[in-house]
């Protein structure tokens, strides 16, 4: 079992080497160290999986032990965490390789790779955790790495702010996550996944406690996985380097919320009050993300909103109890979204940093390989048959449709509309970028190195392959998640027919408006439904004004300080009055003495 810790700690070693001595090393050695450790982990994981079953729990040490709660620093490898580890390490390694060229020549090359390795370490910790605390350490750790990478080019104030925004929004979710942990610890006296899941299904588990803990953990998931209303950080996270967006903000970290819920799905199946909420939030996020994505002109922001929307799909699936389809969509989405981001990165790199899709155009001839990769990714995202995206998306739609609740029809319709919108914005982007147009700049392209093309193509092929050869069916047996829905007969035909015809229609419109160069941007979409406005202009500035005007000015100065000074004034005032008594005149003193004596006598005789 100790190999599991090796797999986990290799990236940490890479982080330490590059972080501590990286600035003194050549760029090549930094890149080598940065890539070598994730690859080592990947190979070790593959090797161990191939030669033996090394599933199980391994405890490193006891983190804390109280009378009625013991928390171990323990890892757990089972089918679910193995699959996630492969996604994280596989895509992670490819993106490391891609980054060696993307970041070529950057001043802080070593810093970049150390952060990336740190991210992998925390992500593996999150995935391999055996209990909620270890998961939370990874959870906060990936947030930290993400914060550092979003603000990687920290000299721009905007980047520094985006990083801080991501961290703060995530922290709101994390408070929810912590509350969820505390409630579970209180109720079940354990925070180990297996024990919680077992205890949740027993009869004497309190439904209120289960629902509450599930709700608070879901708030945590909303933060990390960019769900309504905590989705605002993800689009801004695009200020980081593009490979980071591919790895952290599309393929791995943002799926942590889904992973956590799947990890605890026996608990969530008992949380009957929370599941509908998850489904509704997921669907609304999917719809809203897709709507906003249609009007974005920055290629990375299109993809970012698309990620928000696709994550919404996964949550919608979780909400109707379709845990396996959610996991499948997580799996396929990781590949095709990484493909899209990396090829977008190659485009941006080739165009010397241009990110506006309306200023691109005609790249099909200049970057044919990249076009193929982007096309494959787009086909998956749009859910065209034979691609992996088609399989996972249809699975979600069919499960939602077959769900027994009254609202599930509405959800299905909204998700179908989202599917059409998705096809629309991604094909619009594809046409704008690759079809010939007079907007494209004539500047010669920046050459794309092999180390950048290889991961893009590999991921593009993978994103098609994972939908073929019964891989989904195999995964379903392999993961063996609980099922609560039987798919209705008619759904097998109705759903694909509907979604395909809608998508085809959407693609046709996208083609038309690209050719005709129509650009309509409704105000509400341009303002992204006013979420940023609400948070920054209303909530944050109210908080700041409250702290500054009410607390710092009125309370601190006018009340507390003033009270203290007035006490001082009172003392000074009375002492001045008392000093008046000692004015140095004998007759005055005699008078005082006489008065005092007579008072004493009065007291003596009458009281």
């Amino acid at each position, binding site marked *: 079992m100790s190999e599991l810790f090796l797999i986990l700690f290799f990236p940490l070693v890479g982080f330490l080497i590059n972080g501590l001595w990286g600035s003194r090393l050549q760029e090549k050695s930094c890149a080598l160290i940065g890539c070598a450790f994730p690859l080592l982990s990947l190979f070790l994981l593959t090797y161990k999986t191939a030669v033996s079953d090394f599933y199980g729990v391994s405890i490193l040490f006891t983190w804390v032990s109280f009378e009625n709660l013991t928390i171990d620093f323990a890892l757990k490898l089972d089918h679910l965490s193995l699959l996630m580890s492969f996604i994280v390490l596989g895509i992670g390694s490819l993106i490391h390789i891609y980054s060696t060229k993307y970041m070529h020549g950057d001043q802080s090359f070593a810093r970049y790779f150390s952060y990336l390795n740190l991210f992998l370490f925390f992500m593996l910790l999150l995935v391999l955790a055996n209990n909620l605390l270890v998961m*939370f350490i990874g959870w*906060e750790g990936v947030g930290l790495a993400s914060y550092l990478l979003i603000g990687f080019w920290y000299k721009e104030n905007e980047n520094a702010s985006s990083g*801080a925004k991501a961290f703060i929004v995530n922290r709101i979710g994390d408070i929810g996550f912590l509350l969820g942990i505390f409630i579970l610890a*209180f109720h079940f006296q354990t925070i180990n996944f297996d024990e919680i899941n077992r205890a949740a299904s027993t009869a004497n588990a309190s439904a209120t406690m289960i629902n509450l803990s599930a709700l608070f953990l879901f708030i945590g998931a909303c933060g990390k996985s960019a769900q309504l209303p905590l989705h605002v950080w993800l689009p801004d996270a695009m200020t980081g380097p593009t490979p980071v967006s591919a790895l952290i903000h599309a393929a791995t970290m943002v799926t942590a919320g889904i992973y956590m819920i799947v990890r605890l799905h026996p608990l969530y199946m008992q949380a009957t009050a929370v599941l509908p909420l998850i489904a509704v939030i997921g669907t609304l996020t999917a719809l809203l993300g897709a709507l906003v994505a249609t009007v974005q002109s920055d290629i990375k922001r299109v993809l970012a909103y698309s990620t928000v929307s696709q994550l919404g799909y996964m949550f919608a699936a979780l909400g109707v109890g379709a845990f396996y389809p959610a996991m499948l969509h997580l799996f396929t989405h990781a590949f095709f979204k990484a493909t899209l981001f990396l090829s977008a990165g190659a485009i941006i790199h080739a165009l010397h940093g241009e990110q506006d899709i309306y200023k691109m155009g005609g790249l099909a001839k200049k970057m044919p390989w990249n076009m193929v990769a982007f096309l494959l990714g787009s086909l998956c995202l749009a859910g065209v048959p034979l691609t992996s995206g088609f399989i996972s998306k249809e699975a979600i739609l069919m499960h939602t449709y077959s769900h027994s609740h009254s609202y599930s029809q509405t959800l299905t319709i909204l998700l179908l509309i989202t599917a059409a919108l998705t096809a629309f914005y991604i094909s619009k982007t594809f046409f704008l970028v690759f079809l010939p147009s007079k907007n494209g700049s004539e500047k010669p392209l920046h050459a794309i190195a092999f180390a950048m093309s290889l991961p893009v193509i590999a991921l593009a092929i993978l994103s098609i392959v994972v939908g073929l050869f019964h891989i989904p069916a195999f995964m379903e047996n392999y993961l063996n998640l609980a099922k609560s829905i039987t798919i209705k007969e008619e759904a097998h035909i109705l759903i694909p027919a509907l979604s395909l015809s809608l998508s085809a229609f959407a693609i046709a419109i996208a083609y038309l408006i690209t050719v005709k160069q129509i650009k309509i941007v409704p105000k509400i979409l341009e303002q992204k439904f006013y979420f940023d406005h609400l948070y920054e202009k209303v909530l944050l500035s109210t908080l700041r004004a409250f702290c500054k005007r009410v607390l710092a000015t009125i309370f601190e100065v006018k009340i507390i300080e003033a009270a203290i000074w007035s006490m001082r004034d009172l003392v000074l005032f009375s002492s001045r009055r008392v000093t008046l008594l000692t004015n140095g005149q004998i007759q005055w003193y005699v008078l005082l003495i006489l008065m005092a004596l007579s008072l004493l006598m009065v007291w003596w005789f009458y009281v």
Partner: protein
Amino acid sequence: MFKFTLGLSLFLPLILLLLPSQKERVVAWVNMGIQLLLLALFFTMLTNSELCEFSFTLSESLGLHYHLLIDEFNKYLILLTALIFPLVTYASIDFIKTEKKLFHLMLALSYLLIVQTFLAQNLLFFYAFWECSIVPMFFIIGIWGGGNRLLATYKFVLFTALGSILMLAAILFLVVANYKISGVFTFELQPLLRLQETLPLSAQRWAFLAFAFAFMIKIPVPPFHTWLPYAHVEAPAPGSMLLAAILLKMGAYGFIKFVLFLFPAVVEEWRLPLMAIFVLGALYGSALAFVQNDIKKIVAYSSIGHMGILMLGLVTPSESAISGAMLSMLGHGLTSAALFYSIGLLYERLHTRDLFHFGELATTMPRFSLLFFLITLSAMAVPPTLGFASEFFIFLGAISYSLKMVITSNHYLFIAVSGAAMLTILLGTLYSLRLVKYLLWGKKSEASLLRAGVRDLNLGECSVFTVLLLFIFVLGIYPQFIIESFKLAIKGLSIS
């Protein structure tokens, strides 16, 4: 060995006094050398779990014993003191420019008094050391402080003295009451503990209020906190380190030792208002930290926030909350010392404390930026730091206790209070990230552009951080190491 260690700390000021005042370096290094020796001595004593007790009878009839004892509650505070002092002494080599010998003398005096305060088991001696420990700090701020130092010392002394007087009254009251009940006149803590059973509750309440008031000023809990920002802003960097890392802990320690042990019934009765006061104080401090523009004030107000959460842990009757609070004393001690040290370093180089006069330190001072960032992680309770571990335990205990109250007696106010306490995590993130953003990131401000050639940290300065960070991370990753030894002590508190 205990006697030897105590004797050494007693004679440290004398030794320094004998050294020639022209040889400032020698004074500094002797001071630091002896403090390191003391650290080693305390460390070996505490790890060998020797019986560390010393008692000398001054007057049997008055119950005056010079009685010192190391127990589970002061053990780690002694270690913290022994660890922080050499670092403060080292910092003062650069930061203190005038009257160096006098300064080291003050440090040695302060060391002596603080250690005795933590160790004293006799109420009169405790009171005497507690009161005297203000004096060196008064001089440190008054002689080496900033422009407005007189006002700061004025406030500092008046506030703490006011609290102390009430405490003295309460001590005398307890002693007399004990004499009336049992016929024994004594200032020893141990026999006085029996008063919780014999003294009527109404009398206990008054005594509780007097003690709690003294400690709440020291901790400090709003609205009795306004001396702290002044003192911190005006104090020289080593003084601030000392103040935040150790002097504030004296308040929390006193609260455990004299309030929780002497008046458990009153604490039980007033648990909800106490929790509410501490949580409101924590929120208030954190909220004010968010809008300050003086970086020293940000850290000062953040101390109020962290101490509030610590106190919430102390008044929550749960093993994990109290362990968390004990851990938080170390966590906040180490973190705040490092933060005030960083601010001192910045002030040395750029001669400003205005948040907006920095920027881009990540480029100009990369080593400083890395270390400072790691420290802020602990300040905003990001795992796996000590700051996280301690606050995690406190919140775990507080939320669990509140849920229990909801289930057993349908009492919803507890959960409201401890839920509100968790908002300090958010506020902590807000002010810490604001600090990081304006100091380390962004573009150089125009004010800092004028001063070219900022020097990054040298080896010595880095090692101060390294020592502090080592403890912060090791204890954050493996808190059980310390929690284990709290177990028995917390049982002694007889929580339900």
